[in-house]
């Protein structure tokens, strides 16, 4: 059976070049990078090389990249670190209603521990309003954390402008760039970013490795204590193959960025246009232009999302209802709610995300399948009244 993977925002396959780069570090160059002998030094050099490549991809310098085990750990560290490291200055944090759970649940934890959180609203496209942000800043505000690219609807925030505001106020600025990395241009200096979270498995690197960019001008307390790894900032024996794989993936992402964006944008537009042409009462969620090049989030009114996903799955097609980590309980997404989509429509929304291995043939197959599904299940939907004539 044909298999089409359209969930690149949930995770990506590891590229062959990436796996090839990793392989020597399992069985041969397996040394502990903290060890002084040859095998240790080999591992250490490989880490340094990977760190450079990742720094290059976001315009940072090598020492500003600290490896973590995931984007989630990077988010936890950044936000908790900035919060506890600045609790003498204040206890107020500003974020948005559409952050990933890694951010939202970290904020809930902080709220339970004496911090005050403001969740900014977004407009119907998922954009925050810069005036809202300015108005939300108070005497005791110590951190602003706003994601670069939303994982469900793909909306890109005006990060550079946000960074200007936080710099003017002398407030730390963290951005969750897990979905942005390798999909849009990122330059931490140009964007005025202090802390930025990234994750390898979203850019064709292995799972289990991420990083936190920490601007060299700032300091946050450690999150994981122990050995002197990672410039004494994050303890634990380094995941050498993971780091090497992340480095290789970053290198490829940098090389291919323009081409990648062009290809995805083109395929994405083809998919959206064709669906809108073939099926009535369908809408694209998120911002029409300022969006992740591979993200398609659509509402197929009257068809329940899980039904659609199951049918697609039976046909070999992988898609999702939003963020992978909540998809075992099919609930209306907090992001779709925040952009004001009525509940039935939120429950009728599906996310397709396109990646480097997607072809037009794949999309044609998926489009045909969607047409079948929509026709079939609208017919038995209690809400649907067919428009005759």
């Amino acid at each position, binding site marked *: 059976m044909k298999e089409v993977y359209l969930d690149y925002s949930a995770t990506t396959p590891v590229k062959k070049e990436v796996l090839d780069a990793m392989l020597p570090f399992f069985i041969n160059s397996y040394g502990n990078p903290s060890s002084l002998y040859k095998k240790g030094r080999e591992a250490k050099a490989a880490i340094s090389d990977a760190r450079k490549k990742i720094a290059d991809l976001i315009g940072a310098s090598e020492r500003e990249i600290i490896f973590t085990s995931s984007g989630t750990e990077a988010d936890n560290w950044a936000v908790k670190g900035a919060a506890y490291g600045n609790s003498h200055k204040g206890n107020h944090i500003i974020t948005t209603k559409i952050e990933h759970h890694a951010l939202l649940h970290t904020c809930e934890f902080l709220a339970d521990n004496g911090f005050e959180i403001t969740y900014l609203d977004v407009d119907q496209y998922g954009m925050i309003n810069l005036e809202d942000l300015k108005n939300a800043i108070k005497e005791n505000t110590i951190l602003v954390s706003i994601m670069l690219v939303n994982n469900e609807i793909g909306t890109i925030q005006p990060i550079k402008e946000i960074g200007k505001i936080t710099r003017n106020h002398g407030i730390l600025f963290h951005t969750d760039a897990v979905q942005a990395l390798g999909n849009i241009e990122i330059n931490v200096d140009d964007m005025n970013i202090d802390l930025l979270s990234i994750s390898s498995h979203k850019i064709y690197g292995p799972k289990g490795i991420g990083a936190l960019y920490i601007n060299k001008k700032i300091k946050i307390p450690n999150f994981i204590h122990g050995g002197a790894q990672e410039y004494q900032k994050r303890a634990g024996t380094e995941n050498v193959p993971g780091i090497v794989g992340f480095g290789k993936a970053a290198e490829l992402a940098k090389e291919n960025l323009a081409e990648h964006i062009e290809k995805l944008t083109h395929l994405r537009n083809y998919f959206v246009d064709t669906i809108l042409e073939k099926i009535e009462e369908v809408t694209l969620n998120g911002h029409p232009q300022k969006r992740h090049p591979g993200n398609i989030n659509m509402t197929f009114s009257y*068809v*329940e999302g899980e039904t659609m996903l*199951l049918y697609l799955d039976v046909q070999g097609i992988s898609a999702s209802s939003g963020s992978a980590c909540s998809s075992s309980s099919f609930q209306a997404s907090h992001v779709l709610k925040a952009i004001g989509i009525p509940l039935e429509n939120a*429950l009728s929304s599906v996310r397709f995300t396109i990646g480097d291995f997607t072809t037009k043939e794949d999309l044609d197959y998926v489009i045909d399948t969607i047409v079948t599904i929509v026709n079939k299940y609208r017919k*038995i939907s*209690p809400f649907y009244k067919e428009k005759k004539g």
Partner: protein
Amino acid sequence: MFNDKVIDHFMNPHNAGDMENPDAEGTIGSPVCGDIMQIFLKIEDNIIKDVKFKTFGCGSAIASSSVATDMIKGKSIEDALKITNKDVVDELGGLPSQKVHCSVLSEQAIKTAIYNYAKKHNLEFEGLKGFNPDYDPHEHHDE
């Protein structure tokens, strides 16, 4: 996750769609819970002659309705009322535990339709004793 029989009923549901002039009709669930189920019955001499369902619900809800409607078709009302949620799941060859609650929806929709029918015709059925049409399956089967 799902067995072939479930998938088959989900993809080609029996008795799905509209019915003109049903003798009885029951609706349960609400979009707030993420699913809604409608049952339409043709009843003659206490026998369920025909049945249709419509749903905005997940795959398990659709498959359960497909099987449940098959099971009651041709049965007397009293016999139809005897069919439990467990019978439906068994007939499907099992559902993942976190999906069992979806099958309750079809049972409840059928009972609601018969309840409405009984009310309209001033009838009483043994199998409806203690039945509450405002029952929300989601409250009782949460994991």
